[in-house]
């Protein structure tokens, strides 16, 4: 490769985007004053988008669907919002906000989602998938054991990606811009040549996968051609770099409908092209911002076809176009560029929005001006989240990573993730108290746990039983994961995204838990107070009577916080014992998305005094209202969960009323920055920041039409508040809004 304007390095010889970025970045230490507003073209386009999203909301969340086409990388003709004003082109289909069928994850889900819209897939496709084509979902259920099905249907394992795409994989979408597809094909062909016998199952599979990737790259050339773009060659200027990168991402979201389809960390990369064009006087700041505004606008318009039930676990129609912004290089320089600012500026130019899910990689060493700007954006829009860059870089080993889904580290182009949804740990604790039986149905789930019929629960006994239950749940969970990912590879392989990742990448399996604060407080109640279980005639607990007081998680009280931290460590240790398909490395998250509501519904009364059916706290959050010692004490409790035991991420959603953050904007910005520095210096991993008054949310419930863009962070992602169900809105409102530090 010969690229004149850039500084060469090993990236010129073989695919290595990180090396290109390191050699060519212009870190930016200045303030945000250089930023400009949206162009006329951008505003015109955004008006069309706003009208379309309003139609979508009025039409029950779906504007239009296609029933004739199986969505693939090159399936649809070019689509535009308003061609004359688009400087960055490309839609998932030929029409704005049209949702499509991606049936390889599971055809029944597609049928269900369509029938909820009052339509059916066309006859030929129905026949094909009923008679001839097998899907991921079919494969999984062929292999599922009775035991797995039992754990799944009774709510111990929920949200498993067994009937739709698993998502989470982040293609290195920068590669098409930097190298052009021809070079990438050559590189993959070379890899294929080097994958030789003996022909074990793994080698055969890998050869097939790489061949699929090459075919997919060729399909991307066709996709580009539909928009008159020659993606075979590298991007030659800033506009092309943005366009090429977007096309690569577009290929992924045309083919796959995983819950989370992250973008990676493209802003720093794109800045190199923009800076170059600005220096050469080819473009103005207005044009630079216009590229980013329009790119981001397109990302906001990504849609997938979902069935109603999906909304229970992932509320508000999220797509997790997660873009990681900022952070530091290993060499001590910052990754912050002017384009980091330009991305955040879209939240002003186009208004607040949950997507793309902008995630600030926070480090104490970030330029102060950038920290201040991030704090300002968080206060103004409640649309961004923060993760601990220093912690992740040090623990995980790379400074070139994106955030998969909500909070999970993923090295770009070198590593992927197997999404594992989560298990209900509160329900697992109830197994320990009910002789291994499901507290709701009495079904025997785990053998070898004694029934305790004493008047008060004994802490040591409960703990011993809890460990048995965790071990069993971990085993069934692992079994289900191995089946799911085996079948996903077989029937719905992510060939487009994998084409933009090194051949044979390392893999993390991303297990998860829900109900951590319930478990911690329950164990605390058993240990420090007296808990008398009330049992029905079958001996199942229906309620608990608590005598005396006990410390609650969320108040910086070590007595209970250690119970939370140890629970995570214990469950992680159980998972680590179990071998995983493709030798994936086990990692664990404390993250619920919005499933904390549905998990709560499926869980009986718990020893902490929580009544049957009441929602859990989200992620690693303390239970609503129990963190009564102020904001900092609450943050400190969460920070005690060790990232080494939970490397897939520890999600904390933090809401504070503006006036307790400071008397005026300047003070608020300064204080939020200080809080983030403080929180992350304690090795905490993630925090969502909402700076909001409860009253605003209550008013938005009454008058949704006046708040079309009101955005709120929920659990690793953000949602348009008005797109939540009433139940979810109320749950968000009952969360702790800290009124004191």
């Amino acid at each position, binding site marked *: 490769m010969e690229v004149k304007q850039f500084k060469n390095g090993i990236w010129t010889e073989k695919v290595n985007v990180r090396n290109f970025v390191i050699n060519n970045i212009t870190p930016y230490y200045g303030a945000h004053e250089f930023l400009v507003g949206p162009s006329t073209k951008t505003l015109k386009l955004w008006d069309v988008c706003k009208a379309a999203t309003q139609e979508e909301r009025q039409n029950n969340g779906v504007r239009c669907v296609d029933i004739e086409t199986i969505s693939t990388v090159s399936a649809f003709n070019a689509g535009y919002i308003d061609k004359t004003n688009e400087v960055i082109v490309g839609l998932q289909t030929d029409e704005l906000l049209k949702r499509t069928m991606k049936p390889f994850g599971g055809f029944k889900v597609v049928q269900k989602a369509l029938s909820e819209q009052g339509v059916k897939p066309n006859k030929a496709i129905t026949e094909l998938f009923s008679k001839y084509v097998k899907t991921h979902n079919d494969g999984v259920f062929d292999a599922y054991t009775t035991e797995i099905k039992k754990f799944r249907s009774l709510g111990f394992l929920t949200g498993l990606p067994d009937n739709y795409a698993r998502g989470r994989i982040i293609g290195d979408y920068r590669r098409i811009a930097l190298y052009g597809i021809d070079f990438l094909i050559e590189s993959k062909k070379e890899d294929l040549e080097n994958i030789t016998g003996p022909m074990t199952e793994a080698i055969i599979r890998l050869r097939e996968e790489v061949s699929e990737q090459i075919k997919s790259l060729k399909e991307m050339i066709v996709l580009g051609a539909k928009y008159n773009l020659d993606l075979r060659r590298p991007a030659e200027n800033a506009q092309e770099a943005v366009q090429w990168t977007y096309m690569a991402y577009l290929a992924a979201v045309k083919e796959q409908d995983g819950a989370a389809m992250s973008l990676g960390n493209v802003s720093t990369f794109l800045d190199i092209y923009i800076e170059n064009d600005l220096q050469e006087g080819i473009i103005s700041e207005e044009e630079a911002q216009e590229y980013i505004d329009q790119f981001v606008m397109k990302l906001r318009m990504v849609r997938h076809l979902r069935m109603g039930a999906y909304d229970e676990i992932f509320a508000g129609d999220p797509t997790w176009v997660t873009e990681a912004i900022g952070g530091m290089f290993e060499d001590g320089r910052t990754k912050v560029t002017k384009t980091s600012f330009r991305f955040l500026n879209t939240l002003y130019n186009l208004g607040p929005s949950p997507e793309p899910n902008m995630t600030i990689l926070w480090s104490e060493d970030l330029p102060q001006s950038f920290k201040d700007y991030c704090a300002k954006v968080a206060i103004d829009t409640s649309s961004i989240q923060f993760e601990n860059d220093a912690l992740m870089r040090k623990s995980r080993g790379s400074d070139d990573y994106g955030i998969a889904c909500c909070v999970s580290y993923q090295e770009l182009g070198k590593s992927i993730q197997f999404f594992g949804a989560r298990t209900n740990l509160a329900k697992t604790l109830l197994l320990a108290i009910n002789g291994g039986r499901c507290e709701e149905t009495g079904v025997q789930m785990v053998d070898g746990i004694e029934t305790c019929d004493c008047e008060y629960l004994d802490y040591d006994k409960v703990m011993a039983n809890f460990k048995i239950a965790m071990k069993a749940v971990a085993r069934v969970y692992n079994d289900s994961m191995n089946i799911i990912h085996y079948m996903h590879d077989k029937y719905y392989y992510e060939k487009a995204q994998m084409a933009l990742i090194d051949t044979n990448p390392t893999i993390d399996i991303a297990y998860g838990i829900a109900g951590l604060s319930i478990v911690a407080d329950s164990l605390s109640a058993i240990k420090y107070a007296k808990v008398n279980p009330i049992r029905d005639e079958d001996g199942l607990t229906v309620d608990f009577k608590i005598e005396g007081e006990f410390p609650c998680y969320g108040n910086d009280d070590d007595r209970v916080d250690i119970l939370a931290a140890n629970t995570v460590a214990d469950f992680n240790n159980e998972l680590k014992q179990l071998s995983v398909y493709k030798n994936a490395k086990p990692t664990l998250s404390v993250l619920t998305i919005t499933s904390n509501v549905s998990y709560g519904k499926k869980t009986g009364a718990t020893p902490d005094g929580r009544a049957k059916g009441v929602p859990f706290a989200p992620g690693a959050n303390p239970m609503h209202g129990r963190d009564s010692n102020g904001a900092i004490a609450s943050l400190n409790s969460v920070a005690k969960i060790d990232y080494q035991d939970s490397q897939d991420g520890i999600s904390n959603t933090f809401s504070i009323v503006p006036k307790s953050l400071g008397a005026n904007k300047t003070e608020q910005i300064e204080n939020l920055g200080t*809080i983030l520095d*403080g*929180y992350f210096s304690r090795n905490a991993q993630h925090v969502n920041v909402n700076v909001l008054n409860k009253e605003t949310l209550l008013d938005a419930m009454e008058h949704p039409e006046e708040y079309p863009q009101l955005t709120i962070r929920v659990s690793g992602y953000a949602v348009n508040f008005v797109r939540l169900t009433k139940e979810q809105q109320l749950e968000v409102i009952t969360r702790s809004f800290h009124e004191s530090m």
Partner: protein
Amino acid sequence: MYCHNPDSIETSGGKEYHIEELVQMAFKMKSYFGKKGGVTVSGGEPLLQSKALIFFFKRLKEEGIHTNIDTNGRILNHFSKELLDDYADLIMLDIKHMTEEGYVALTGRHNKEIAFNLAKHREASGKKMWLRYVLIPEITDDPELLHALGKHFKGYKTIEKIEIQPYHKLGIHKWEALGWDYQLKGARENTEQELQIASNILKNYFKEVKIN
């Protein structure tokens, strides 16, 4: 008369903590203090507890935590002097009124000079101080009063800034909850323009003027 924490006026009551408990609480928050933060004791009137605060601040200093007292400056005795001279990194001194008459009307107490004496004592120690001044329309915002305030403190080298506290009525509900009569019912909140005028006057005398 307008205290926004009337529930802290009573000198009995409240919750008792051991000093070491408070130090531990502060220590746990130390990482959130940043470059400018630390522990501020306010009131009520913290100097009433000067003797205990000496021990508290001494321990905070040992833990490397910045110490600050928010005071109306009415107590100047052996203990408060020791606290101010040896342990308080910063004091925020509340100046109520520049005339004795106004001072009495506002605070119900005599002798505004005590607070001025405390300021003088602090100036002599060479340690930092901020002034705070609640700007109440028609009561403390007369330009003459503001000039008097400026002139009085003009020569002070330890004063880093003066903070204008706009008058707000947020405290009223607390007074009502305590079953007391809110004393300043007639007063209104400041306009933006009034705040600017006051700020401009004070800028003639102080390095920094901040409107809170």
